[in-house]
């Protein structure tokens, strides 16, 4: 099933979250098309490791565009259960489909209330439109 941006929740810093397994409390996480556009040409991404603990609002990885290094922040707290390890070798997929093929990691949430603090699509789009 294809995920569309309207279905997602967002951090102001442009990471998205999608509850991909409600029963297991697993959230799929990536960065938005707006972020990819702002970053321009991506050349490298430092991904987290499976088993790594992440915290809501804290850095979980880094992305390098042509000359800039930027952090990526986790929308939720929990444990990384899966990483899209092949993404590093095909970063162009983030330009094509950042919400499906360009997912970055899956996190088993430790506190599902983290989701309530995220922006919905309308609020996030408003932020981007006024950036």
């Amino acid at each position: 099933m294809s995920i569309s941006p309207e279905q997602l929740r967002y951090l102001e810093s442009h990471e998205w979250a999608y509850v991909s397994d409600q029963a297991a409390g697993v959230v799929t996480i990536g960065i938005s098309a707006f972020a990819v556009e702002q970053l321009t040409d991506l050349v490298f991404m430092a991904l987290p490791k499976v088993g790594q603990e992440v915290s809501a609002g804290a850095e979980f990885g880094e992305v390098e565009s042509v000359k800039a290094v930027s952090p990526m922040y986790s929308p939720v707290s929990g444990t990384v259960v899966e990483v899209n390890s092949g993404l590093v070798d095909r970063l162009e997929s983030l330009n094509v489909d950042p919400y499906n093929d360009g997912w970055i990691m899956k996190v088993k949430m430790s506190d599902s209330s983290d989701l309530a603090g995220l922006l919905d699509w309308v609020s996030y789009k408003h932020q981007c439109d006024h950036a």
Partner: protein
Amino acid sequence: MERRGVVVVDPPLSGIINMEKDDALLANATPDSPIVVRLYRWSEPTLSLGHFQEIEGRSEVAGLENASWVRRRTGGGAILHDFELTYSVVIPDVGDKVLKGHSESLYRSVHLTLADELRRLGWDANLSEECTCSTSPNRNSEPFLCFSRRSPVDLLVGPYKIMGSAQRRTSKGLLQHGSLLLRHSPLTPGLAGLLDIERTRGADMRGESTRVVFAGRRVAGPVEMTSTDVPAGQSVIDRGEELLATESVHSGQHESDLHSLSFWVELLTSVLKRSVETEVRCRWES
């Protein structure tokens, strides 16, 4: 909102200390911190690697095997800091998380402003408008050295890249590094510096158009810049004067000005102040 700014001109320092200073400026930045423009040189020829670069990559460049090296927090390719002038700009975040990634407008602004100054001095300076970047599977497919790469906003004089900049953005703010290559290094003889390149036309060094006068050039804005004192006898200027005066490739009246590091420190300081002021006013304050 009024934001303060400060200009720091440091004496030549080791690579580790130079990077620690910039890291600390970014790590300790708060919304109330001043914007910092720092100009510095290096106490020995030093290779600074882009944040994700591997040191093994230097094997592709003959002569760098034994060079001291340090890693930058900013991205991009490796730079050999020898006959060059380095700058850093730290702009603290004031609570906006609007942009991820780089703010290309800042280094475009710095490079365009410097290009304008160099054209006034007679050099054929322009932005690159080409790119060697790639999203290919192997990020090492780009040349190891920054000055062998091209991105659209790099500053070229003729075919030679003489300034490149790179950034790091954190929740604390933005760090931008840049390097003005003044003269080629014996370790990288294939990379021409600005003073190795003939000017395409003469410039009247006495004329107002070629002089840098902070007061006259300063754009009134919210950023107040003040220069710090440079300790006498150990400043970058003192050491640089010797380095740059070793050779002259130009001829003409008042050429000695171009071989004075203090001239370039002053010029680059002016360029950075104007660019930061414009950027802050147009972007951060909007």
